[in-house]
């Protein structure tokens, strides 16, 4: 296999916007190496899309970014991932703090079997917020940011499980933004949704970049093209190419990238 050039160097980057910088990241499940020397810079208040065929490691890479692999027995992450210059795998780094600053939205909507309100304020609650008025404000702000407020404001005390799939996923986004994270990681957040719900989520992601840095795994190249500013193409555990999204889709530098986006494999 052809060794990829050090891809991060290819994007002209203003250092002030290097929100999350992964350098030579390896992820192992037991003795199996799922990610090999992946380096990627995710810029602040932009959307970085991770694309690639199934099993290429994009979700594995995403989950390294908020230390979710800590929860998987046998999983191991090497290399460095800097959040504003601090290594999240460093000796002083605490996963609770990291996950407070880096939120996550999962592939399948996974609201808690609680009320809509309790879902929205779960994060602030576990981080110690008790003031009912503050929680009310957070719930409203988060639900508005997730474009869900108007649909649920009259039934905040109903179960989140009574919502439709698309609403549940927006509730999960609200639950993440309620903590005011700096980065939001999204793992194919629309893959289980119908086209209308998908387009709502996509619109939402565009709005979220006003405040947040978004890293999104997606199966859909059209989706990556529509919503992202930067795209990284993963193949068999490696980042083959990364660059501004329109460049990746119009003038890919690597043969494998071109083959993938033109539909020759994947």
């Amino acid at each position: 296999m052809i060794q990829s050039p050090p891809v991060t160097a290819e994007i002209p980057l203003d250092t002030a916007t290097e929100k999350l910088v992964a350098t030579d990241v390896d992820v192992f499940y037991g003795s199996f190496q799922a990610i090999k020397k992946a380096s990627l810079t995710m810029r602040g208040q932009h959307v970085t899309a991770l694309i690639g065929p199934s099993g290429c490691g994009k979700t594995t890479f995403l989950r390294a970014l908020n230390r979710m692999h800590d929860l998987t027995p046998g999983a191991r992450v090497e290399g460095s991932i800097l959040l504003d210059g601090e290594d999240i795998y460093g000796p002083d780094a605490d996963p609770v703090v990291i996950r407070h600053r880096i939120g996550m939205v999962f592939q399948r909507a996974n609201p808690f079997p609680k009320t809509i309100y309790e879902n929205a304020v779960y994060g602030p609650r576990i981080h110690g917020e008790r003031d009912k008025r503050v929680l009310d404000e957070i719930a409203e702000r988060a639900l508005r940011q997730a474009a869900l407020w108007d649909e649920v404001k009259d039934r905040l005390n109903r179960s989140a499980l009574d919502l439709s799939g698309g609403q549940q996923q927006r509730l999960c986004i609200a639950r993440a933004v309620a903590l005011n994270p700096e980065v939001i990681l999204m793992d194919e957040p629309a893959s289980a949704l119908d086209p209308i719900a998908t387009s709502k989520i996509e619109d939402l992601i565009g709005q979220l970049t006003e405040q947040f840095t978004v890293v999104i795994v997606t199966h859909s190249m059209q989706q990556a093209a529509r919503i992202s500013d930067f795209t990284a193409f993963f193949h068999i555990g490696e980042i083959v190419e990364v660059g501004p999204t329109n460049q990746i889709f119009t003038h890919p530098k690597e043969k494998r990238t071109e083959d993938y986006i033109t539909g020759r494999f994947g």
Partner: protein
Amino acid sequence: MALTTVPSARSVAATANVRARKIVDYVATTVLWVMATSIIVVLAAFIGYMIYLGWSALTPSFIFGMPKEREAGGGVGPEIYNSFYILILTLIFTIPIAISAGVYLQEYARRGKFREIVQFSAESLATVPSIVMGLFGLLVFVYTFHWRYTALGGALTLTLLNLPALLRVTQEALSSVPDTLREASMALGGTKWQTITRVVLPSAIGRLTTGVVLIAGRIYGETAALIFTAGLSVTVNSPYDLNPFHTAETLAVHLWYTHSESSVADVERIGNGSALVLLIMVLIFNVAARVAGRALTKRFTGRAS
């Protein structure tokens, strides 16, 4: 534009093959329905017969009166109280231990030797016959601790008896909570403990309630484990006190005792009445526990189910 209809060689009517398959379907449905219905019939007949036999015995003097050793007309007031008292005492011990152990095994313990040993011990404990557990209680609480026959000794023996069952229920309840919920909580910066107390246990509350109801039924009905530990008599001076060191014959034990050991004249009446009271108590507890479980579920999940 009018479209023409072309007659097809195939028909939409049922063929012999389809008819045969539908007969199998019909027969299977009928058999299953009969089986399911027979459970209801057996239960209804059982309850009906018990009510028929026991109804006349249910007088205030029977339900609230003191038991008698020889003459007729004894009541079961203290026994009803003791059944309830020992139930509560047993649940106070069993629930925290079983749920804590279940949480540890399911949420914390790595798959390894220690976990296997605990699991194996619990399963072994579950197979110990209740009479053996009763003799163990006799040896430990009555002889070694010199407690004599006590409600506490009975409750601790019942705790040993029911711990494995509730542990199992807890493990299954916890494993039915999807990992995606645990991940969601951890991804929001929740600690493991917060995840367990705020997400996992509340999600499992319905199944846990069912488990508690099941063991409560067993505790009400248990005799062998109590005969040698909680005793065969009630505390005559203060039958309704809260002292756990008083002897405390339960209703189920009383039922067994009057039938096999005592010399009262109205054995039949007391037996039938006790059986009916026992049944009613179990039903009341089941309904109450379900109502409570539903209220808890509603409170934690915002959803009635």
